[in-house]
């Protein structure tokens, strides 16, 4: 555990700094009310109204996120494998090749079905 306490210290420090500056910016900066300035910026014309909780956005991002999850999980498995590859030798290699190949199936599917296209 004590390996992580320094991290905590640093994090605390950083947090203090960040929060402090957020507060400071609120405190120090001048306050001149101006309706236009409080509107969200759209090149000076009236902003189009936003639905509550942000508008809807392209499904594309969702798909990207999905892919990210899949590959990130793969990485989770790759790391320990890599660290101890020397111990597992051939078996490890074969297993991982199979694993990656399996993953490629899904990957190829997504690719062919245009899951990776942005237009």
């Amino acid at each position: 555990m004590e390996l992580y306490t320094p991290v905590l210290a640093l994090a605390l420090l950083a947090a203090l700094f960040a929060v402090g500056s957020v507060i400071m910016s609120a405190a120090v900066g001048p306050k001149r009310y101006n309706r236009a300035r409080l509107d969200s910026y759209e090149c000076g014309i009236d902003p189009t109204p936003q639905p509550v909780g942000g508008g809807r956005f392209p499904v594309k991002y969702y798909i990207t996120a999905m892919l990210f999850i899949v590959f990130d999980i793969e990485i989770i498995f790759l790391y320990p494998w890599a660290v101890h590859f020397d111990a597992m030798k051939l078996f490890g290699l074969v297993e991982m090749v199979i694993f990656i190949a399996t993953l490629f199936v899904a990957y190829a599917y997504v690719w062919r079905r245009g899951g990776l296209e942005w237009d």
Partner: protein
Amino acid sequence: MTSQLTTLATAVAAEDGRLSVFGQDPWWLILIKAVVIFIVLVLLTLFNIWLERRVVARMQHRIGPNVNGPFGLLQSLADGVKLALKEDLIPKAADKVVFLIAPVLAVVPAFVTFAVIPFGPEVGLPFTDRTTPLQLTDMPVAVLFVMAIASIGIYGIVLGGWSSGSTYSLLGGLRSSAQMISYEVAMGLALVAVFLYAGSMSTSEIVAAQNPGQDYWFNVVPVPTWYAVILFPSFLVYVIAMVGETNRAPFDLPEAEGELVGGFHTEYSSLKFALFFLAEYINMATVSALATTLFLGGWHAPWPISFFWEGADSGYWPVLWFFAKMFVFIFFFIWLRGSLPRLRYDQFMAFGWKWLIPGSLVWIVLVASIRLVTLEGGVDRTYMYAAAGIMLALVVLLFFIGDGEGASDTDRGLATTDGEHDLAGDGVAADDFAGGFPTPPMPTGGAVRGAAAPLTFADRTSRTVAGSAADSTTTRSDEEK
């Protein structure tokens, strides 16, 4: 599978012993280290900003900031002060709390990641008899830790973009998060090879693994031991990924001024903006430092210094080498920005997903096989062939896919509903201009958000740009499913 992993994990647990030098510091030492790192990072940022402006200016035959302080070194500090005195705006469309938290979320991880970066070897503290490594801390999964913390930073950006309640911010936030995660995958894959060779995920050990008892060809030329050399492809991928990860040019699409004004921090002002700025530059430093650690032998003195001067790797000198190497990367960042145009978003994503990731996957397999061969001189051939065969298959498959993209893909049957997508769809890999470069496709109906009507503002091209990206992606993906 299970039992296999069991042994792995036990091994991981067993490693704690090897990091015995860490976690011995008393609280005050920890505090000192933390403060030092903190200050170093802040100063580094200020310096980097200045450096960037100077270098870019020089590349563009300008002078750059030279008024405040010697060589204008204090310019960025002045900017900071100015920002602090700016009015602090919170748009009324914004989600107040999140809007305030977002910058904090962005900054804190940026700082924290530096906790595991080794600046140097174990050194004796002045005025005391205790020795301590020049590194805040280290852990068996240090690099994983870096990745994890770094990805927390993404929250800051997404939430910042979302909470601003403005379309630009939203799309900017989404874009940047999308590209960050995309390139994080590539980066993660690039690291695998390193772990494979180092046999550890702790930064200090990786550094150590890169600098065994150095031996030389003809007693002069060092046998390459840096992973940048022996794992060059990984290094390449990592460098590319790190640029994408930090949203730097040529991958700075989130704040693509032409499309998105300022991207996710469009609505931010004053110090909150400064925080995002800070975070970005610290991330830059972080990835550079990480690159140094993982690929350039960390704090070890580079050849020929190490050849001529034995003491180069002892005492506080290594800090010098470390920062020297780090600034190489930072300069590289600046250089890129100064010289390269910005990519188009689809090209950018396609590059990440269609080349970096599969490429590095194949590379991993390759490396593993090579490693295997080196480990046991004579391996059972048949297995080698099997592995090679599968690997080859993957490669072939990869290129087949790549080609199949341009060729008539049957699935375009879906897209035939409107030929334009057809073009755009195929165009990506085949030729980059089929989509109608540089103007993105016009809106094809479908809602951007909520039940809002299709956007038909003839006079507001910039809106339609932002909108059209949304439109077409929505409708397209609908068809794809």
